[in-house]
């Protein structure tokens, strides 16, 4: 990783109330990144139990190791906005979805689909729009670092489902679950984005929330659903589900 800029004049120039809000957002984001690291470690363990391709396992292990580093970067931003050191948040308990009705093996594949193919792909699109709105050197550098890693994290899932180690029966089952996974995870993004300032904070990687959510929806429509089709998972149900959504 390149050395980060020591100072960011756009942060220095920001109004105190906006700095305080951004410090809170980035401290919260650090907590989420730590939770994502715990979840990724669990997904990596499950992929190993599924005898996933060694390339997939290597990527998944790296992803689990990346997230705590992301949390540190988030705390660096929180501290820059607060003008004071930011405390490392306590670890949060993380439980992976039960996916009631799925057998043990299928549940592990669904975790990889939800965590990697869906959420990390949406994360890439979300960080892209945030980066597009980032003006300052520190804010931009940290978002570039995050985006670079999130691309790798999404690849864990796409590499896994492209692998011949995922059999035809599993592909059929994953296809049936896709609308449910997409619906649940997109709703999760919607509710988290709704927590952000609706109008955003211009220049600080915080676009208006409507733009953030549209990026998440577009990722589902243009990347994730076609992505499942690309790796040999029937995406017809997923496409029908998306078409049934109300326009935002």
């Amino acid at each position, binding site marked *: 990783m390149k050395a980060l800029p020591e100072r960011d004049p756009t942060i220095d120039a920001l109004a105190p109330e906006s700095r305080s809000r951004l410090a809170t957002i980035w401290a919260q*984001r650090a907590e*989420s990144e730590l939770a*994502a690291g*715990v*979840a990724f470690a669990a997904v990596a363990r499950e992929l190993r139990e599924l005898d996933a*391709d060694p*390339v*997939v396992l290597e990527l998944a292990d790296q992803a689990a190791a990346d997230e705590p580093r992301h949390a540190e970067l988030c705390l660096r931003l929180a501290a820059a906005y607060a003008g004071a050191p930011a405390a490392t948040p306590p670890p949060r308990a*993380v439980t992976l*979805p039960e*996916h009631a*009705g799925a057998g043990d093996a299928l549940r592990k594949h669904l975790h990889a689909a*939800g965590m990697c193919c869906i*959420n*990390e*792909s949406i*994360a*890439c699109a979300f960080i892209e729009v945030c*980066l597009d709105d980032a003006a300052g050197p520190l804010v931009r550098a940290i978002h570039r670092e995050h985006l670079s890693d*999130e*691309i790798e994290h*999404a*690849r*864990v*899932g*796409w*590499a*896994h489902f*492209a692998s*011949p180690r*995922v059999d*035809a029966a599993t*592909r*059929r089952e994953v*296809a*049936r*679950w*896709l*609308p*449910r*996974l997409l*619906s*649940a*995870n997109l*709703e*999760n*993004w919607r509710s*988290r*984005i709704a927590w952000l300032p609706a109008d955003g904070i211009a220049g600080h990687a915080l676009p208006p929330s409507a733009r953030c959510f549209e990026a998440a929806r577009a*990722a589902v429509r*243009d*990347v994730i659903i*076609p*992505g499942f089709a*690309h*790796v*040999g998972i*029937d995406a017809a149900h997923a496409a*029908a*589900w998306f078409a049934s959504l109300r326009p935002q």
Partner: protein
Amino acid sequence: MPSAKQLFHAIVIVGAALTAGCGDDESKPSTDAGMADASRVIDAALPIDGGADARVDAMVIIL
């Protein structure tokens, strides 16, 4: 901002190529037998529960 096509390439095409050798041509169909079989299946999707109940299927996110 990168286009959806660029993002699709960066994560799906490149990611899939790591294990399946799909290469750079996104229109090229997979030759894996399991994939070909799956593409023919017409199966009932699982019902989606409304509201908060649906979120039990959601994974951790970074935001």
